[in-house]
């Protein structure tokens, strides 16, 4: 029982990381229906930027997070401008965007490798106080709570942005019907650029949090594991759905943890992706997704 509780905590914490990644991932998909495989790389760049700010520029945590966030965001805008926008203008297939994003991922990761090296880095100790709360047999770290809180906050924030603000309105309109949106005076390219900014900024934040949560994990490759898992998460949640992404992420995390605890840890990923396969085939709108055409 105690173990189960602790494992649930672990699962939620792991899941919230997936969710964090999935948020930005799903946003771009929701608007453009392209899968941006450069997102893991953006996450890594965000984390590394924060590292430089903390260690070399010696700024405070808040500033570092902000820097990583903005930096990653601008990177996203750049990527859209140089890589995705030309494809849109040509009306190229989503396949093309997928491959371009792979190319970008290659470039980013290797640039990062040249700039920051390959040795895993960790943020200076005490960046975030290592505090632990123990409720009976269960241990929760301050960071885990922080991450979960951030995820929920970002999720709500994103929802509010999309539902309450003028810009959010435009994003949703463009996502649903670019032509009608333009008839209503919404500038397609600017809206898309902002979407990329938002998505990548979220990626940057995710990177920093992952880096803090797992000391000694900050490296150009740190995003790699999240690429597929994040994809799985947003599929479980129904692609393009903000809340779905978070729920999907949590489902993935808890699922994996339970597999490790009660089934065979070595089949963790097989089970995870086996389920993903079944979900796709049996319930193509995702476990939590609303009705939406699956034609691409």
């Amino acid at each position, binding site marked *: 029982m105690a173990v189960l509780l602790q494992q649930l905590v672990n699962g939620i914490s792991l899941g919230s990381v997936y969710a964090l990644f999935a948020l930005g991932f799903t946003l771009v998909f929701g608007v453009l229906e392209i899968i941006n495989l450069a997102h893991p790389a953006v996450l890594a760049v965000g984390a590394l930027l924060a590292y430089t700010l903390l260690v070399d520029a010696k700024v405070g945590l808040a500033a570092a997070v902000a820097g990583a966030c903005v930096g990653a965001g601008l990177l996203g805008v750049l990527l859209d401008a140089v890589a995705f926008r030309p494809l849109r203008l040509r009306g190229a297939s989503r396949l*093309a965007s*997928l491959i371009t994003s792979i190319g970008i*991922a290659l*470039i980013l990761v290797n*640039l990062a490798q040249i700039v920051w090296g390959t040795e895993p880095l960790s943020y200076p100790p005490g960046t975030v106080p290592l505090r632990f709360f123990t409720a009976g047999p269960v241990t929760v770290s301050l960071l885990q709570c922080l991450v979960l809180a951030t995820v929920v906050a970002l999720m709500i924030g994103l929802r509010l942005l999309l539902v309450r603000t003028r810009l959010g309105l435009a994003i949703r309109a463009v996502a649903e019907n670019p032509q009608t949106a333009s008839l209503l005076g919404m500038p397609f390219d600017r809206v898309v650029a902002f979407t990329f900014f938002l998505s990548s900024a979220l990626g940057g934040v995710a990177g920093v949090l992952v880096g803090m949560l797992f000391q000694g994990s900050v490296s150009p490759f740190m995003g790699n594991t999240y690429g597929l898992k994040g994809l799985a998460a947003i599929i479980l949640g129904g692609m393009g759905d903000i809340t779905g992404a978070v729920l999907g992420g949590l489902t993935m995390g808890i699922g994996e943890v339970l597999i490790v605890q009660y089934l065979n840890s070595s089949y963790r990923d097989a089970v995870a*992706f086996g389920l*993903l396969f079944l979900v796709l085939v049996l319930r*193509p709108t995702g476990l939590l997704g609303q009705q939406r055409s699956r034609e691409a």
Partner: protein
Amino acid sequence: MNAVTDLYAAYSTLVLFAGVAALLALSIYVTLMAGQLSLGNAALATIGGYTAAILTKTYHAALWPALLAGAGLATVVAALIGIPCLRLRGIYLAIATLAFGEVVRVAALNLTITGGALGLVGIAPLVSFPHVYGALAVVAFFFYRLERSRTGRALAAIREDEAAAQAMGIRVTTYKVLAFSIAGFIAGLAGGLAVHFTYLINPAQASFGEAVTILTYAVFGGTGTFAGPILGGMALTVLPEALRFLKEYRLLLDGAILVLVTTYLPNGVLDLILRRRRA
């Protein structure tokens, strides 16, 4: 003359890799012909590779029977994967097949018959130039005819407009499964060939990265006709070697090339070459 043989000696394996890459590119091309993006080919190749390797290594089977057995198994698996996937299109199909790939990878990682993470080592180097390029020639010829056949046109019709194809009386599902099966066979064959000159096969061959690489072969070369994937596979295999002098900047350039080609050569490099000739 001597220089030439030296050169070949220096790059013989690279030449074999190029041939295998071309085969893999063709295996994804056949599904693309029908407008289906499947990323399970790396996994299918791995299945073929393990099967063939186990047969020659443990059961001392002859090469060709082993290769065909591997290709056969991959074909069956591909068909089985293809059927449930028929409801999915585009990106969603891609992801489903990727998931399948991961399952294969992890299975290979944990099964004893596949030798876990280390995989199978010390596989006899039974494959050389004639095998790979013989196979490639046959498969290429197959595609040459396929593209000029009723079947090939049916696949193309499905890619162009599924509803219209149905209205022409084309059994869409049948042809999709056919495409998947052919893909499985070619991938499995390629996998079997590869393990017999790399001495080793391990689960990494089924990874996400490999799957994506195969796709880039096809797109890089161009998916207009079967010559594109062949060109793409070979070019992208040789390129990194040609770029050795760039040391750690190689992958950087690889990435740049991918972006540039998809952006400025929508129909692949082959198209560029052909246009040159026309001009």
